[in-house]
């Protein structure tokens, strides 16, 4: 905690740059739609998780459980809303 060099932050930053580059492969190389979406989904969610854990210190207090449940719940409802709506309005019309 008290060390001067912010190793955690630097590692986090480096890793998110790497993930951005991986995501960019979707643009610069010629891959199929499915493949591309898979890459984007993986890189985006890992990066988001990285921010929450490394930079936002989500797990550092005794409210850890409330915070994580809150995030997971929001994520669940968000995904239900997005995919549910697409199912209703686009895929099954």
């Amino acid at each position, binding site marked *: 905690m008290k060390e001067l060099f912010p190793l955690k932050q630097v590692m986090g930053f480096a890793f998110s740059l790497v993930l951005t580059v991986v995501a960019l492969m979707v643009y610069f190389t010629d891959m199929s*739609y499915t493949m591309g979406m898979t890459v984007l989904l993986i890189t985006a969610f890992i990066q988001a998780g990285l921010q929450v854990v490394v930079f*936002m210190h989500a797990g550092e*207090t005794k*409210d850890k459980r409330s915070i994580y449940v809150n995030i997971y719940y929001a994520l669940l409802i968000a995904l239900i809303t997005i995919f549910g709506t697409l199912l209703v309005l686009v895929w099954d019309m």
Partner: protein
Amino acid sequence: MKVDNSLPLEYSTEENNLKILGFWIFIGAEIMLFATLFTAYFTLENRTGNGPTGAEIFEITPVLIETILLLTSSFTIGLAIHAMRLNRKKAMMGFFTITLILGTAFLGVEIYEFTHYVHVGAGLQTSAFTAALLTTLGTHGLHVTLGLFWGLFILLQIKKRGLTPETANKSFIFSLYWHFLDIIWIFIFSFIYLKGMM
């Protein structure tokens, strides 16, 4: 006021703890806010009417600059909090200032991007797709703008009052907000720009 010295300054009072948890729950609500915008965007993505499609108007260069700027600013605000926890006021304020400068630069590029869209005939009223696109980007941009003012005021307060439990708490919450905006940008970058240009 009870001050608990075993925890970092921003957690030191009961009120501070409440504010941090409250802000996390606000972030939960913000996730839903952006999820709704994404829902609208994905639904209307191909409904371009007479207007251009995403592939026709997106440009990789400004988007990439914006991404790097915001990613770096997320890093520097992390460093600011790190410095704050080491009680280094000067370093903290320095990183905080850099964050705000990077944020302003991001906003500048985004404004350029918007004028570009309007210039190529993809205004707010052009089609359902452009409306959803500009609203989603605009909402994020508005958050960044508000964040810049908010950050500036916190910076002024730290300068005037030093690192107190109150200012430390405000700075920490601001950092949560800023990281969250970065997360949203990652999703915009991946599922609006890259998906659209793929």
